[in-house]
């Protein structure tokens, strides 16, 4: 026990008070607001709305795959458009925006003890540019030729050719413009998240006292700031190829018996740029989830997080490693075997810090006082799902296993488990956890239970059979699977079963949305700290936190974020801003 400063001799907060922008009208308070909390809600609402569109698109795909030939309006072109937009929206406009723009904006200033983000005006611009990006994306549904159907990876040359929906119409152009806008908007927000963590921490909040949520979001933002430029470069160059006729990516090619004016370009160059962004993107989504789930588990198991330092190092280590594994998405592009060997090795190495995190979560639960609240249920579901998805990742990380499986439903099931279902479960858990802080009321418990069990079990009923039919050889990206030898009768039945489960899980999300709206008015009053948690956002004088977050004086931090069940303390949690020493928390091994 090192008691650094006796409690009664602590000097007053000397951290410079930041100049807060005070809104003067309804418009600047709720619409063009510079308050990170309002921006967070705007981000989350927009991301959820566009996410619902992507959910409906996945239903359309499942209608076609489960019951081929039944629905005339799902033409092959429409099917590819649904695939493309579903993937792009879910990965970028929903997950990235919600974790960093939504949770980042809400939690970073509150958790580090700041009044607001350090550049509030830029933060506001970030949201409006994001909204513009979403609107451009949505507009492509109404453009002549419809949205692009190039697949979410937008591989050239097919992405900008006539045979692909939107390739020679507006679809691909709007897609690229929307991505460029998104990246510009994200960079503005990302600067805020990083610099706020660096510069606006309150007195006593050292880096090693940050809650893991902040560590996860911080590291993910740094990665995103370095990875998104690669997508930016790829998008700009493809826009040049499509609109101005250059040949960055376009090889000499004959289309409908006609020689195109392109020549000599390299589609592989695009793949390198795309995946140099694309693989870090997986961890940009996963790291905030790792951080948040650590806090959920610790709070709801009333126990300090096991191996805090290891957790921090693992987050940073995963962040750095994820930049040298990108080519494992390109095993089938005909790369040099040594190259493949290198990337297989780095891919498998990344499993080490990831496994450390999983062990630490489990060891945090070990002999904890586990409260099976809804956030805890989602956190537990995340651990199981992430382990499942991660293990199939170890299969696919090996070149010899990946090559035959690469174009099958097995890959679809793998990445949906690991970066679709797992992060979404954390998002749900986090919403149930922090909703009382945002609105002052609890979400309805019964609806929450229904939502959890249908989503959790349903996701497994969707994706476990999908692994199986993938191993049987059922290919991905095909819009109709009727006349293939691999499509046995049982495979057809499984496909229909998966589709029905997908509708069910989708329906549960509608219940969740209803719960979100219903509980604003009718939820149980939550009080300031319903989960009896230690971190600073629960210690605000008002709930929901008012403009400026912490009333007159910023809190002073005296301890780390995980003082749960400390022997000798009066209650089973000690808030970070409570002075005095209370004996040591349990010593991690």
């Amino acid at each position: 026990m090192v008691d650094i400063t006796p409690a009664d001799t602590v000097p007053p907060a000397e951290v410079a008070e930041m100049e807060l922008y005070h809104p003067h009208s309804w418009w600047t308070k709720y619409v063009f607001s510079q308050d990170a909390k309002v921006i967070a809600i705007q981000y989350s609402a927009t991301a959820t709305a566009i996410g619902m569109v992507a959910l409906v698109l996945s239903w359309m795909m499942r209608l076609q795959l489960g019951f081929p030939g039944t629905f005339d309006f799902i033409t092959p072109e429409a099917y590819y458009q649904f695939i493309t937009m579903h993937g792009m929206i879910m990965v970028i406009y929903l997950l990235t925006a919600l974790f960093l723009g939504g949770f980042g904006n809400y939690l970073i200033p509150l958790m580090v003890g700041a009044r607001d983000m350090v550049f509030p005006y830029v933060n506001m611009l970030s949201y409006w540019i994001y909204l513009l990006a979403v609107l451009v994306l949505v507009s492509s549904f109404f453009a002549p030729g419809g949205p692009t159907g190039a697949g979410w990876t937008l591989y050239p040359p097919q992405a900008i050719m006539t045979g692909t929906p939107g390739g020679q119409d507006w679809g691909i152009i709007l897609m690229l413009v929307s991505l460029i806008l998104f990246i510009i908007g994200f960079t503005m927000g990302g600067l805020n998240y990083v610099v706020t963590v660096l510069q606006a921490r309150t007195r006593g909040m050292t880096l090693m006292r940050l809650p893991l949520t902040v560590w996860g979001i911080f590291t993910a933002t740094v990665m995103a700031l370095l990875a998104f430029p690669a997508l930016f470069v790829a998008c700009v160059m493809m826009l040049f190829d499509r609109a101005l006729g250059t040949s960055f990516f376009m090889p000499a090619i004959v289309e409908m018996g006609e020689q195109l004016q392109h020549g000599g370009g390299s589609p592989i160059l695009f793949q390198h740029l795309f995946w140099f962004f694309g693989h870090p993107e997986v961890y940009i989504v996963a790291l905030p989830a790792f951080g948040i789930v650590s806090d959920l588990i610790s709070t709801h198991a009333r126990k300090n997080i096991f191996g805090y330092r290891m957790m921090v190092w693992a987050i940073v280590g995963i962040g750095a490693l994820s930049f040298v594994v990108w080519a494992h998405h390109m095993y089938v592009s005909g790369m040099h075997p040594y190259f493949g060997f290198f990337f297989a090795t780095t891919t498998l190495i990344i499993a080490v810090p990831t496994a450390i995190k999983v062990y630490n979560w489990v060891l945090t639960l070990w002999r904890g006082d586990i409260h099976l609240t809804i956030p805890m249920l989602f956190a537990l579901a995340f651990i199981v799902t992430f382990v499942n998805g991660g293990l199939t990742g170890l299969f696919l990380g090996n070149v010899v296993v990946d090559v035959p499986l690469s174009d099958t439903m097995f890959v679809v099931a793998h990445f949906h488990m690991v970066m679709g279902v797992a992060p979404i479960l954390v998002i749900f858990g986090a919403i149930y956890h922090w909703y009382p802080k945002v609105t002052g009321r609890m979400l309805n418990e019964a609806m929450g239970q229904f939502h959890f069990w249908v989503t959790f079990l349903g996701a497994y009923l969707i994706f476990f059979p999908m692994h199986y039919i993938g191993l049987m050889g059922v290919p991905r990206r095909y819009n109709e699977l009727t006349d293939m030898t691999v499509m046995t009768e049982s495979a057809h039945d499984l496909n229909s079963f998966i589709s029905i489960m997908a509708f069910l899980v989708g329906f549960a999300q509608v219940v969740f949305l209803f719960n979100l709206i219903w509980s604003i008015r009718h939820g149980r009053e939550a009080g300031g700290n319903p989960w009896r948690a230690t971190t600073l956002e629960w210690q605000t004088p008002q709930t929901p936190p008012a403009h400026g977050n912490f009333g007159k004086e910023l809190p002073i931090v005296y301890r780390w974020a995980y003082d749960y069940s400390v022997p000798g303390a009066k209650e089973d949690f000690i808030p970070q801003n409570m002075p005095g020493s209370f004996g040591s928390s349990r010593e991690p091994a």
Partner: protein
Amino acid sequence: MSVILVFLLVIVGFAGWWLSHQRLMAKPWLEQGVIGDIIGPEGSTLPTAKIGLGVFLAVVGCLFALFTSAYFMRMALSDWQALPLPRVLWFNTSVLVLSSIALHCASVAARRGQIDTVRLGLATAGLTALVFLIGQLVAWRELTADGYLLTANPANSFFYLITGMHGLHILGGLVALSRTTAGAWNGTPPERLRLSVELCAMYWHFLLFVWLAIFALLAGWAATFIEICRQLLT
């Protein structure tokens, strides 16, 4: 992709150096009380805006490193035909150097509180940067007049793309610079003015550095340099 990896290695090195000063070996579960009294304030003493700009410049650097990576990968393919660089680029380079020097003088003067020199430096920097942009357009016109069109060869495409991207960044800097200049005339408090002048100078020096790197790249010296390095290594 080696250029971007080298760039990231520099970033990782810097991040590692910074993290090593952040007591990552601390055992937070054993420490209670305000640590700040012992090891200083939680954030850096540098102005927040400077750190923000520093992070932004890292992103911009990443962007140009990626363009460079793409340039080298595309260059290796058979249809590449290097284009002759217009002479005016030398003039543009010297003008941009002048612009950077002017801003450097302005920021030194701002530190000493010599408002007249600050105004002179800011105005000179703005005008020379404008001349640079016009010079770049002249270079584009010369190339198109000589038949080196955008789509004719990937070398040409990259030339227009990369110089255009750099020009856009200068243009964005000019917006900030014009606001600072207006502030210098309308009596911004000296502390604030000093900070904005220093931010402009930082951005300008960085973009000058990027331009020199691009110039070396487009002129083909960068490829020669890498070839020499490769031979030394093997």
